[in-house]
């Protein structure tokens, strides 16, 4: 896929659209007609050429516009980036990890040169060049975590491992599915997963925590999560609920194809070297129902998933108000034929 960066918006006039190439590589998350919450963690090994998992961090056609949207959100609410004082080693780990991955995987867009601790970073799409001393925060225009967090698509939470659990002790969160960094920062694993329905009785969170506590450097993992969003809006935060919450009342069976978007999160987890922290990356991919329906197999699959979704999950994902409208819009694509197992489009 080419890296021609699009000029588009994720607010106000919502000009965001996916190119046919972006639709083709969309990380569609439903291999079966039924969906139930699961840990579904797998090794974050390189996927096929062109896939969103081809590289450590995915840079796509929306890169420049998403970084711009992130900057707007941070300008309006600087509290979307927070880091507790003991996370400084983790901040530098994050800076090194993102700079090294981007420069290695996208050498035409990014470069990193090192002379001992004197580093120079070049970000061509955003027109940035920065020389600094690794480990000396005074040589950067802002903290190392925020500096690079603004230059990568998606949200990032840094997890400190202590007391037999993980604490969300730093984060840069501007494209969240209705959760608040200000509320969650400093929380432990079981505290911030408390509201997830159906999982306590399944023991899912205990097993996932145990797995992540032994996550190894060099062996990152990933999973997909999903929800829905009305309009292609990245910042669906509780802080800004008045700006987007009401849109959920505007969906009907005629406009659902345009307004309703499937929102897929590619969640990846990486163990950091110096801090022993875990980087939790939450990358959001949006696709409208109209775009999805360019592959009828996906429209059939999603029709069945959404129609038969467990009521607790409908409520948790915040799609109660428009579930029926979207199911009605999608039903025209579903002839009831068995489409087998797998997430692939036609």
């Amino acid at each position, binding site marked *: 896929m080419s890296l021609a960066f699009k000029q588009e918006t994720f607010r106000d006039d919502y000009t965001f659209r996916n190119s046919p190439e972006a639709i083709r590589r969309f990380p569609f998350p439903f291999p079966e007609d039924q969906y139930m919450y699961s840990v579904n963690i797998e090794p974050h090994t390189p996927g096929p050429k062109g896939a969103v998992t081809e590289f450590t961090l995915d840079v796509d056609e929306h890169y420049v516009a998403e970084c711009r949207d992130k900057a707007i959100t941070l300008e309006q609410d600087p509290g979307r980036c927070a880091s507790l004082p*003991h*996370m400084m*080693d983790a901040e530098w780990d994050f800076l090194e990890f993102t700079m090294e991955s981007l420069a290695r995987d996208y050498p035409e867009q990014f470069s990193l040169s090192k002379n001992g601790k004197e580093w120079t970073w070049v970000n061509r799409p955003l027109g940035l060049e920065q020389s600094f001393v690794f480990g000396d925060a005074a040589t950067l225009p802002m903290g190392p975590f925020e500096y690079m967090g603004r230059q990568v698509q998606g949200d990032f939470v840094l997890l*400190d*491992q*202590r*007391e*037999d659990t993980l604490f969300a002790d730093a984060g840069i969160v501007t494209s969240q599915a209705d959760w608040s960094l200000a509320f969650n920062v400093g929380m432990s694993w079981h505290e911030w997963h408390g509201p997830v329905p159906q999982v306590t009785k399944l023991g899912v969170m205990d097993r996932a925590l*145990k797995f992540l*506590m*032994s996550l*190894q*450097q*060099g*062996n990152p993992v990933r999973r997909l999560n999903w929800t829905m969003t009305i309009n292609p809006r990245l910042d669906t935060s509780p802080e800004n609920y008045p700006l987007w919450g009401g849109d959920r009342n505007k969906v009907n069976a005629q406009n659902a194809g345009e307004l309703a978007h499937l929102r897929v999160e590619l969640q990846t987890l990486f163990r950091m*070297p*110096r*801090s*022993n922290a875990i980087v939790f990356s939450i990358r959001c991919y949006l696709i409208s129902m109209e775009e999805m329906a360019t592959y009828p197999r996906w429209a059939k699959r999603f029709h069945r998933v959404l129609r038969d979704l467990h009521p607790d999950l409908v409520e948790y994902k915040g799609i109660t108000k428009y579930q029926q409208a979207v199911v009605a819009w999608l039903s025209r694509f579903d002839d009831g034929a068995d489409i087998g197992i797998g997430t692939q489009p036609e």
Partner: protein
Amino acid sequence: MSQLQVKVAAIDDVSAGVRHFTLVDAHGGELPAFSGGSHIVVTMPAPGRTYRNAYSLLSSPENRAHYEIAVHRQPQSRGGSIYMHEQVKVGSVLDISYPVNLFALSRVAKHHLLIAGGIGITPFMAQIHDLERLGGDYSLHYGFRSREHAAFADALKARVSQRAVCYDESLGQRMDFDALLRAQPLGTHVYACGPQGMVEALVSTARALGWPEHHIHSEQFLAPPVGEPFTLKLSKSELEITVQGDMSMLEAMEAAGVDAPSLCRGGACGRCELEVLGTDGELQHHDHYLSDADKASGRKIMPCVSRAKCGYLELNL
């Protein structure tokens, strides 16, 4: 699991029975940085069987040019430490795991009290680099049998003399855990690494004094104890494997080609936990991971160090 390949660049004898290995990237590149307290698992392809032992990294975590480990030749070794002492030469190439930290410094501690016994000094060598770099407040207490067993004592005295106290048992010098722990300011975390008796005494003293459980850290890597042979039945794999007396269940499963999960291989991390479906004998738990209640339930086992005295043991794998 991704592995690293290293070449032995230097071997030195640092004290009685302790050999020090300097490892560089086999392909001439940089090794990953790590955090003080991390260990690597070294794979030793001995004739007829493969040993995998965990060793703490003692070099500076910021130094990506090489790693350093120290290997104590265990008198009752099953073969791993003897292999490192006798078979590994300068120029040998070894597969190692990425660094894993099960003994990390707490980043919210007000003071760090480091307690080392013998070869247990190794993780603290790296942690001291981190504490010095971060300006952490700490003190190190290092006990050893005699001067000839005092690995790295001179280097420590040269580097951090004002923070390190040494205890030479042959001169009658011993740590008084009770007095030491009572003298610590609130917010102190204590870390112990060394012989089992020392670590257990330290931990029980701290608990008796009311220290919060999360302020007490210890690390011991166990070698799998030798026992009697038995038959291991794996229900999902539909396999029967003989576990020899000097082999762990994990090693026996790996030798049979079973993809069993594992990480530290020393009973500390919990990754290899398996469900027990049945046995005609009794489980012999040796790990530090399972709770006493878990051990008593007879339904879980850590195959890296634990075994059974039985004819057969059936696991859900």
